[in-house]
Every structure is written in structure tokens, then in C-alpha cells.
């Protein structure tokens, strides 16, 4: 047993299991393991309440429309207040695509119908006919050494950021939040949200380490530092991706 361990909450893993978002959890767990930090993964699905003092990192991925509809109701009515409080208290969240949208105020369908979402993030999303699909490259605004993040986006929602919410990154290649303002993703307190599948964290190890560090500092004190890790294979993957992404 290592003296350090993190608990990762995976929201609705049985419903949001598309586009390889599961890779983000594998990456968090793998890279924590490289530093002898244990990780425990807790699956939390429909009807189960969110124990906000239990987790260090919460992962919220994306899925298909039919499944996201089921989840929105559960998120708002069963887990709602506890998740919002956790966000305000600085719990670390990683939200991808559908998870990102559902953390916002609402999702407006193409026919104009507005579906209430959690409202933990001051953003809203409007669906459009044209789907943004393709490889992406962004310049991350968070303080990480190599700011280029790579991913794959696949969404018809256009997300717009409100006050107090910063973009995660600037678009270099791809569409990002809405294809209009050159922003991608969102950051609010310790919530990091993005449209990047890919999976995001395996190919962006610095962002992965940044998230781990946020959680570790919160749990074990501000002076906690993450040991450096050998990234040679991640670098190979990044180079390979860069050369064939278009």
C-alpha cells in the first residue's frame, strides 16, 4: 500500500461509454501509479447519490443523445445539489463533451426546446444541425509546460461561456466550443471541461499530471509535488498524431 491514494468517481460509466472517454480514467490511474500513488475508481450511476466528501477527482464523460436524456434527469434530481456544492468547494472535475454540456445551465435542442441542465458551470449549449467532427489541436491556457493539447471532437452542440468561466484553450485546429470565438473548453475553480475525446489525457500527459496535482494538493496539502515521469511513449504518440492529424 502506498501512503498516497486518490479516489476517482466515474459518473454513469454504464451509460457514458462512448468515444473512449474511459481512457482518461485509465490515464489518471496509470500516471498516478508511475508515482506510486494508488487510485480507487468508484462507479456512480443512476439513482445513486453523490457523496461529495468521498472523491478526489470526478470524471464525467459523453454519450449518445438517448442516454444523455436519462442522465440529465438523474443528475439534476438525484445528484444535483451535492455536485454543485462540490464544485464550489473546489473538487477536481474533468468533464468531456456531453458531461461538459450537462454541467452547464441548459441544452437547447435544434427545434428550440430548452432542456434544463445542472447549472454548476456558467455556460450554455445550443444544438445545431452541422456536427463538428474531426481531429483537434488547441493551445491550453492552464500553466503546463507543453501547452499544445491534441484530441478528437464530435459534437453538434455549440457552447458559450458566461462570466467567471475561462476557456480551457484557444483553438489552433478544429472547432472547439462553438466554431465562432476560437475558444475550447472551460475552466471554473477546479472544474476542467472540454470537447476533446481522443482520449484526451493519454495523449496530453501534462494536462493529466496537472489534474492529478490539483487533486493531490487538495488532499495532501499545497506543498505536494508530483515526481516527474518519463513521457517518451506519449511523445511518440503526440508526434505521430501531429504528423497525420489533417
Amino acid at each position: 500500500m502506498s501512503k498516497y491514494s486518490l479516489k476517482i468517481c466515474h459518473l454513469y460509466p454504464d451509460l457514458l461509454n462512448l468515444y473512449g472517454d474511459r481512457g482518461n480514467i485509465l490515464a489518471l490511474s496509470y500516471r498516478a501509479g508511475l508515482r506510486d500513488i494508488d487510485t480507487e475508481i468508484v462507479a456512480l450511476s443512476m439513482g445513486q447519490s453523490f457523496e461529495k466528501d468521498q472523491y478526489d477527482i470526478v470524471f464525467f464523460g459523453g454519450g449518445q443523445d438517448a442516454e444523455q436524456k436519462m442522465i440529465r434527469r438523474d443528475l439534476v434530481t438525484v445528484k444535483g445539489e451535492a455536485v454543485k456544492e462540490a464544485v464550489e468547494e473546489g473538487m477536481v472535475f474533468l468533464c468531456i463533451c456531453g458531461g461538459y454540456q450537462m454541467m452547464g445551465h441548459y441544452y437547447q435542442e435544434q427545434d428550440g426546446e430548452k432542456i434544463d441542465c445542472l447549472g454548476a458551470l456558467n455556460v450554455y449549449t445550443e444544438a445545431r444541425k452541422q456536427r463538428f467532427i474531426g481531429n483537434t489541436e488547441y493551445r491550453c491556457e492552464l500553466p503546463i509546460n507543453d501547452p499544445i493539447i491534441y484530441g478528437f471532437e464530435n459534437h453538434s452542440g455549440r457552447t458559450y461561456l458566461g462570466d467567471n468561466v475561462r476557456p480551457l484553450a484557444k483553438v489552433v485546429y478544429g472547432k472547439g466550443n462553438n466554431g465562432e470565438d476560437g475558444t475550447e473548453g472551460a475552466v471554473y475553480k477546479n472544474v476542467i471541461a472540454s470537447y476533446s475525446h481522443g482520449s484526451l489525457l493519454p495523449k496530453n500527459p501534462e494536462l493529466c499530471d496537472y489534474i492529478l496535482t490539483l487533486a493531490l494538493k487538495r488532499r495532501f496539502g499545497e506543498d505536494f509535488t508530483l515526481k516527474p515521469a518519463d513521457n517518451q511513449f506519449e511523445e511518440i504518440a503526440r508526434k505521430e498524431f501531429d504528423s497525420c492529424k489533417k
Partner: protein
Amino acid sequence: MRSFRVGFALIIAGGIRLSLRLLGKGATALPGKIAVKIAPRFIREMASGCDIITVTGTNGKTTTTHMISESLRKSGYYVATNVSGANLSSGIATTFAQELRPVRRAVSKGLKPVYVLEIDEAAFAKVAGDLSPKVCVVTNLFRDQLDRFGELLYTRDCIEKGLDMTDALILLNADDSMIAALRKNRESRTEFYGVDERSMTRNNVTDTVASRALPASSDAEYCLSCKRKYEYGARSFGHFGTYSCSSCGDTRQEPQQSVYFDPTKSSSDPGLPLVFQGKDYSVEGVLPIPGSHNIYNAAAAFAACTSFGKIIGDPKLSPIQVAAALSEVQPAFGRMEKIRVGDKSFCILLVKNPVGLDRALSMVASASDADGMYLLLNSNIADGTDVSWIWDVDFESKTMPDKLYVSGERFGDMLLRLIYSGVDTNQLRYASMSEAFVLFEEALSACEPGKCLYVLPNYTSMLALRKFLVGKYRLKDFWR
């Protein structure tokens, strides 16, 4: 009577095909594409009066089509079928154009012609009506190339639309809740095939979350109509099993034709005994092509052949004879075929989506002759440009061979997938796509005598690999 326009289209298509062949190219789509441009009713007119069986669904189309075709050939039919992968309307039109004369010749020799066509799910909505098939087989619905289709339910809508354009007998996979739901409003012309419940794993093991890994979840855990989580009595793999919804009562339908096998025996090794069962018969056979997913393909092919026989009134397509013919089917080139090179062999398993890769990894893990596994990942349009799906596959629970090789245009992604699953990096060799064939030779020469190198490419990396192998080992070409 064929219209002038279709006659003209045939001449042009024939000319294009000939020129492409002279240039040494496989003419599997272009002739048909042009023919349909010239005569929009091309497929409808050509298909008129023909006996046609269609196969659609996300996985297993090619193998099921192959199994049906071979079984019918052994039963005295002349079978016209499309080349693997040429399953859009262009490929189907090409098949009709090029089979015109061979079919005529076969008829003059007294053979009965039948068309067995694999059809892409999206294309099915458009061409099924033109074909007016006798039998439509639907294999399954798994995530596949979502960046092309957007959503799984969209894919199902396409199949649904196509079915409604025909009055064919519909053969559905009883164990796939998403596919079985297609029976609704079509009950009178729907039958089911599936795996015998006794051959499935009982569902008494709940998912255990390993400390570092997490189980991959399946595509259809919840009832589509009332969103309640399905309960399973037994499971075969993925979301296949005896599901039931406690809220609306939706439940797995008892298949009219099912396949039984001993669940303690490995389906990875050749010759798994099968029992084909119907209401008033039970006949023995063997699984002609290894792999648990091929049990479903065999069940589908068996149901297709016997049902077709009933419809056209051919006593030769009895359960006993179909089972015998099906048991002798050989794998198609480059699909599960073990190819001997000197004192060792290699075997190519096409993997293009999560469940396909999951099945292939399981198969390699339980193959007693595996000495090396070579994964190739490309991301061209035909592959799906999104490679994220490799993270949905449960590598963590599989035992991998000691020697692992990775290539393809996206080898970096696959490399990370393996490493993050806990593979020791010393076991890994990798190369970019331009060096993929050198790596193949290296892998083959490192393979022990008597053993087999398992090669798992996705679609376009498989095409490239085949081309190389055809030249290198003088193997027969994959287009006819």
C-alpha cells in the same frame, strides 16, 4: 423487359470494369457507380425476378455472407455475391453488372442462381426496396465508425427504413436487444436466431472493479423504451444475452433456430462442435471458423439458408444438409485464415470496432498456438477517423502474448493503449506505417516453429497488408 437506359448502363459499366482490370485494378465500385448515374433504376431492374438474401448489421456481415454463400454453393446453387467491403449501392450495382453473364451461363447448366449481398447499414435504407429480397438477415448493432454515422440509433433507423421497403422474411438476432426490437410492427414476418441459453455464461458474477482498471461496458445496458436497466439471466458477450426489462416487460424472444455448444470448450481452436436446433429437429455440426462471434454468424447463416429453402420450396436446404454444408465452410482469404509460411503461420483478424477488437483479443488470449500479436491502426475515412474507440476495449482483462508489435498510421495511439493497460514496454516493438512490412517480417521470424503470429489490422491497414502479402508470398488476390 430491361429498359434501354439500363442496357446502356450495362455496356458502359462493362467497359469500365474491363479497363480497370486491364490496368490491374480491382473494379468493385466504380462500374456500378456509373451505371446508377446513367440509370437510376439500375439496381431495381437488374434485381427484378432474382432470388436475393441480404445481410446487414454492424459486425459479421462479411463472414455471414460468406457462410451463406458457401453453404448454398455446396447445395447446388450458383451464388452471386459482392466482394467484401463493396457493400454500398455502387458495389451492389457492380455485382449485378458483372454477374449478368455468369448467372446466365449457370442457368443454362441447370444451376439455380441466388444473390447473397452484404449491405452497409446506411446503404440498406436506400437499396433494400430496390432489391425486394426474400430474406433479410440482421446481425447485430455495435458501435462502429460513429464519426461517420453519428449515433448508434441512427444506424438502427436506417436498417428499420430498409426493412419497411421490403416484404422479406426478417431474421433477427434474438440475443441483441437493439436488433430484436426491430420486430415491432413486423411480427408476422420476423423470426429469430440466437445462441442457446445453456451455452451462455450465467450472470451471477457482478462486475468487479480492479484497482487500476475498470470494466468496459457494453452498448445497450438500458431498455430503450423505458430507460430501465436490463436484467440478464445469462450473457454471451457484449450486450448479447437473455435480457429483460422489469418495467415494460421487453424481453429476449425465444429463437426459432438456435445454436448450442459446450460453454466450457474454447471457440478459438478449430472444430468446436455445434448443435443446430429448431422446433422439430436438432442436428450436429462444427463451427467452421473459430471465434465466439462466429458462432452468431454461423447461427445467422444457418437460419438464412434453411428459411430461404422453405420459402422457395427446396427440400435440399433441409437442416441436416445445411448443417453439413455450413460445417465445411473455409474462411475467406485474409479473414481468420491461417496462412502457412514455412514451419509457422500467421492469421489475420480484421478489427474495426470495439467489440471486434475485444473478440479478437479474447481469441488470441485463448489460442494455444499464439506466439506474437501484431496490431495495426489506421484512421482513414474507411476506418473512421476517430481512433478513440480503442480505449473502450478491455485490454486490461486479456492475457497478451509475450511478443507485441504495433504499426499503422496511428501506431502511437495503439502503443499508449497497450502501455496503459500494463504491458511491459520491453515486450513491444513498433514502427510507423512505412515500416509496417519490415516489422511484419521481424515478427514472423521471431515466431517459434509450429506457432502462429496473430495480426489484428483495421480496414485500410488490412488492405495495405494484404497487398504486401499477395506480392511477398504469392497469395491469391482478394478480388476476383
